[in-house]
């Protein structure tokens, strides 16, 4: 299974419930956008362009098909309360949770953040948030979204702070590893001024 399919499965599993295809694609876009801004690279290998309904990559359909072919997910056609036909995708709960080793702690953190923030938001509000993201501005339909322009924007705004280091630090503290402030101060500055 390719990275894009694994990425979608990770989103589906973190959401816990099935997701409409539009929402799943837009969650993938938002996670990739946050990753560009915080990690300097995307999580997936999707290359988004401005389709009629916002960010899109035809590879998304291939990734969903890949998931379903491997029985990692199930797709079902349904009709929404407002009368729209849509495809509903859910992970296969009968399979064990993968280890997600192909994703860094930063990747996983950002996907979980996006799922928490947007998976239960009303679709129209979520789509509005998607349309208000920087790559969607000043781009015409059928043009690629300039995702690379977002590289490290959040990291730069935070003075160079690294999300991956923060996550490593939290793990180290959980293992009981730390350096006391006064020890490091004395080591580096010697006797007080």
């Amino acid at each position, binding site marked *: 299974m390719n990275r894009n399919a694994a990425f979608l499965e990770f989103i589906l599993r973190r959401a816990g419930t099935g997701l409409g295809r539009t929402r799943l694609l837009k969650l993938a876009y938002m996670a990739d956008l946050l990753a560009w801004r915080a990690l300097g690279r995307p999580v997936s290998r999707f290359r988004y362009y401005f389709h009629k309904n916002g960010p899109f990559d035809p590879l998304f359909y291939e990734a969903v098909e890949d998931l379903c072919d491997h029985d990692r997910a199930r797709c079902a056609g349904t009709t929404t309360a407002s009368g729209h036909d849509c495809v509903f995708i859910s992970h296969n709960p009968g399979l064990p949770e993968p280890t997600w080793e192909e994703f860094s702690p930063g990747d996983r953190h950002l996907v979980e953040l996006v799922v928490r923030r947007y998976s239960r938001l009303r679709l129209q509000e979520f789509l509005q948030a998607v349309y208000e993201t920087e790559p969607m501005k000043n781009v015409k339909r059928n043009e690629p979204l300039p995702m690379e322009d977002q590289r490290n924007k959040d990291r730069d*705004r935070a003075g160079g702070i690294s999300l991956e280091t923060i996550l490593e630090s939290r793990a180290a503290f959980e293992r009981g590893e*730390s350096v006391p402030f006064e020890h490091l101060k004395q080591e580096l500055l010697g006797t007080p001024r």
Partner: protein
Amino acid sequence: MSIEFAPGVAQKIRDAIKAWNILPKELPFWVFDELEKLDEDPSLWHPDVDGVFGGAYIHQFAEERPPIVLKASVAFDVERTPEGHVVRILDFASRFIKEE
């Protein structure tokens, strides 16, 4: 004050200070001074950046050494108590500019 550094962050600070030989002599002291100030005054904390980071505290310094000015900024990500006191340093970053 009971503040702890993650080991990787302590090493980042050691490495940065080693690289500061030609930069402001006071910079290592400023790093610790700023953390102490941050612990004493939680209002110095800069808000979260789009929910991705826990937040960041960025401070800029400048030292005039005619004919140049050395500028530096240090940034921290920390965990705090509900009262705002710093308990853990999760990351540190530094940047330098030399202006002729």
